[in-house]
């Protein structure tokens, strides 16, 4: 199940990057990681068991590391010379290019695992493509990140299996979480037409093994994250993340 379709992803990655590297595409990849790391950071001290505080902290740290590497590169590629902090703390909402899935407020643990499963399945395919990026820095970050995100996907997989095949309650919560997350998936799909089917195939196999039904097609779905259109939750997320840094312009920390 793990390696299915990676050959196709590699070929697509090469064609996708036949031309120059688009800093906005890299920014999307960076912002997904930054914003999701921000949400995962909220779990520390709130997880169902101490091992999970550590695991979610680890995943958040990995993503934060990916975000930092990519943001630094964006500041070089787009010619503005902004460093990682300038990009993280001084951009306004409309300049963030993350998909809306990652900015959703923290839900229960089932919602987090549904989000993590879909997110990491898609991100893994994207990163596999970016390993072929003509930009060495981006390719380098992706190369390291592939291993990390494969672990994230595995972590979510294990939990979705446990929750799906655990108790009545966990099964109901997991199923509901999948329904609630569904409207945020088309953004991931549109973002990566080549990798998305592979990601979907992976997740559906997990859901089948867990005895969970695939959620129905949502009536509404999120759109616009990659062009800077976000949900109501995003303003609060940024207010919290950016407030201290912006209160002391020019200060070093």
């Amino acid at each position, binding site marked *: 199940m793990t390696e299915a379709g990676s050959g196709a992803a590699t070929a697509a990655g090469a064609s996708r990057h036949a031309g120059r590297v688009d800093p906005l595409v890299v920014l999307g990849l960076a912002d997904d990681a930054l914003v999701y790391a921000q949400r995962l950071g909220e779990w520390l001290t709130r997880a*169902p068991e*101490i091992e999970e505080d550590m695991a979610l902290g680890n995943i958040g*740290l990995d993503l934060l590391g990916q975000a930092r590497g990519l*943001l630094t590169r964006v500041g070089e590629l787009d010619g503005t010379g902004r460093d*990682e902090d300038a990009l993280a703390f001084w951009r306004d909402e409309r300049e963030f290019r993350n998909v809306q899935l990652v900015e959703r407020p923290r839900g229960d*643990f089932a919602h987090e695992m549904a989000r993590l499963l879909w997110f990491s399945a898609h991100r893994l395919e994207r990163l596999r493509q970016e390993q072929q990026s003509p930009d060495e820095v981006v390719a380098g970050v992706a190369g390291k990140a592939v291993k990390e995100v494969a672990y994230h996907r595995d972590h979510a997989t294990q939990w979705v299996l*446990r929750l799906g095949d655990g108790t009545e309650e966990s099964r109901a919560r997991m199923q509901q979480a999948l329904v609630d997350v569904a409207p945020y998936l088309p953004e991931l799909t549109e973002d990566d037409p080549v990798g998305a089917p592979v990601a979907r195939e992976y997740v559906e196999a997990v859901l089948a093994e867990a005895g969970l039904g695939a959620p129905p097609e949502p009536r509404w779905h999120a759109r616009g994250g990659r062009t800077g259109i976000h949900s109501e939750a995003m303003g609060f997320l940024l207010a919290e*993340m950016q407030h*201290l840094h912006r209160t002391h312009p020019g200060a070093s920390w």
Partner: protein
Amino acid sequence: MDGSQVGPLNAAETEDYAQVVEEHFGGLIDADQRIEPRDAMPAAYRDTLVRQMAQHAHSEIIGMQPEGNWITRAPSLRRKAILMAKVQDEAGHGLYLYSAAETLGVDRSELLAKLHAGKQKYSSIFNYPTLTWADVGAIGWLVDGAAIMNQVPLCRCSYGPYARAMVRICKEESFHQRQGFEILWTLARGTEAQREMAQDAVDRWWWPSLMMFGPPDTGENVNGAATQSHTKQSMAWGIKRFANDDLRQKFVDMTVPQAEKLGLTLPDPDLRWSEERGHWDFGEIDWEEFWRVLGGDGPCNAQRLAHRRQAHEEGAWVREAAAAYAAKHAARGQGAA
């Protein structure tokens, strides 16, 4: 009927056995050798250790909260990463210590239940709030610093699993302390507002840090007599190696020059070098505040415990699901075999 009124049921419940245990255990302690889980040990030694390790583990877990409070607001991505890693380390410390306690036949869920019911304590220092970013620095520098001073002697504690957990933990705490110092160093050399923030944090955390070494060994306080005999016993058992006041003095002696390097003032007008003692003299600690906060009347006691309980209760269905899943799969595995 629990059988306690029946008297000794077997030879291991007789005085004879108790004496053998005493001799074996006493021999190891006298030779300054490690006691291991399989060694016979007096019940009081075991109980003291379980209590102390549990309290220590709880402190690591509750201690995640005051700093966790700043993860989403950390002022740079580098600081955010360092802070997340630190809070995660503390969770790991909690796990090592619960595991060490489990070697004595208690389990983590039992200990957590006692914490949540308010029947076991955690370090009172975490009942103070983190009001600014500089508090993250002050906690690293002072609170981790004081913890290390307390914990390094525990690396030679007579109980093997506890001592080994402490060796691992002290190494990481030492990174934390350095990172805290570095946060304050940067703030103290930053803008006027940053410098003020750093000084304010040190003003608030200095005295509570000194209280972390516990009440004086002299017995000059309300619970003095009890404290004194407790200390004596723990020392005889090799659980405690130094008196509270000695460790506190060492901490002050080590920290004063560091404060000077930072260019921050420790909030104690009586702080001065004593030529004759060869130590820094310091002012009177407000032990009334210590007992008050320990007794539940601190700014964050209720909040810390409520936060911890809430996480535990909200996670109950997840833990139940994991247990149910494991049981089903164990059963299926047997069926297949």
